[in-house]
């Protein structure tokens, strides 16, 4: 199946999600609620991508690729929305003077922190 990711054409196997296809193309998309082998949940919305012809952004973990699909994983729109969502996630994380990344024992193995740094 032929699809286009970020203006480059790829030949992908059928019946895989956009996220899997993007991974095969060695492009990284941040995810939090996605877990390989489990049904996608679509809660964190960080993996959203732009698909030509779709009014809204689509969650790449939950949508399967289709013939001729044109995907943009890091367009300006996508990055802006992703950043806002990440800000919302971090804002709801209960960070305070007493409890923050400096005092948290999980700081070195924290998925949230890694992705927050990635998105910026």
């Amino acid at each position, binding site marked *: 199946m032929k699809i286009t990711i970020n203006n480059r054409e790829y030949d992908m196997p059928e019946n895989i999600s956009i996220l899997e296809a993007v991974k095969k193309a060695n492009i990284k998309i941040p995810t939090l609620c996605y877990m390989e082998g489990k049904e*996608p*949940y*679509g*809660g*964190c*919305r960080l993996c*959203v991508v732009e698909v030509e012809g779709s009014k*809204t*952004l689509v*969650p790449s973990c*939950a*949508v*399967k690729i289709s013939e001729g699909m044109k995907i943009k994983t890091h367009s300006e*729109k996508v990055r*802006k*929305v992703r950043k*806002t*969502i990440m800000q*919302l*996630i971090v*804002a*709801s994380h209960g960070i305070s003077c007493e409890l923050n990344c400096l005092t948290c024992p999980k700081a070195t193995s924290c998925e949230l922190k890694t992705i927050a740094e990635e998105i910026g």
Partner: protein
Amino acid sequence: MPFKVLEGIIIAAYAVKANYGYIYIRGEYSKAIDIFEKTIKDAYHRGLLGKNILGSDFSFELKLVKGAGAYVCGDETSLINSIEGKRGFSRIKPPYPVQRGLYDKPTVVNNVETLATVAEIMKYDENIYSKMGTEKSRGTKLVSISGDVKLPDVYEIEFGKGTLKDIIELAGGTKDELNFVVPGGLATSILKYDEIDVLYTYEDLEAAGSSVGSGGMIVVSNKHDLVDILLNVSDFFVKETCGTCFPCREGNRNIKEILLELKKKGYKEKYKKIIGELREAILLAARCGFGQSSVNFIYSLLDKFFYEEVR
């Protein structure tokens, strides 16, 4: 009316060869539930439902399900979850209900207004609705007008025959001076007092930046405090969000925080940027239609009444 809906359900079932159907009514609507319970009982008694309807080889069972009153259960996938006895929140689409819906079987979900219309269309050889309305908005719409009008009620409006202003006139006019109109429920953008000269059709309302929505029109006079209205609506969405996806859950919560600050300290320029960003994220990335439309009202009201004052 219940018979028209019942007829529509049976016709729809016959068309898609479905043998099981459910009618889902919110638990609060006890009157509608009483009426429809009786309707279903009578229909079974007369052989209009059940095995071999009126001696034909078509069988159809209809069951009434009472909802527990969550707003999000108006979304088709949430409604399906609710019927299955699960928590009422949306499912990921695709698969769409027509592919895999109730109990993982292909399912058609329709609104009662649509079903009642189906019954009406099937009654005549020629489709009477095709002659009504405009090219893009055919037929009629049941508009439920509430708020500051003298005769709040449900009115059947033909598309393209009148403006929003005419519809308000039909409902007896406004009680005090008109401030704004919500054309289609809290999920649609507001139209200001000087913007209501717009024809009531899908295309004209869309061009005006709003939409027909659910047809639940709310008329608001200038006797109400705008910030209180904003907080009330925001509170509703914070309470009713199912909480599955971040943009809708946290976005709406943060919008409420901003509005509380607005009430305390007055309007600030920075709110526009923050709410604009939140709106974009929710609009583009929320998981269901409930989330995507949850900021329309608040953003349009702020845009039309607060931002302009500053400009």
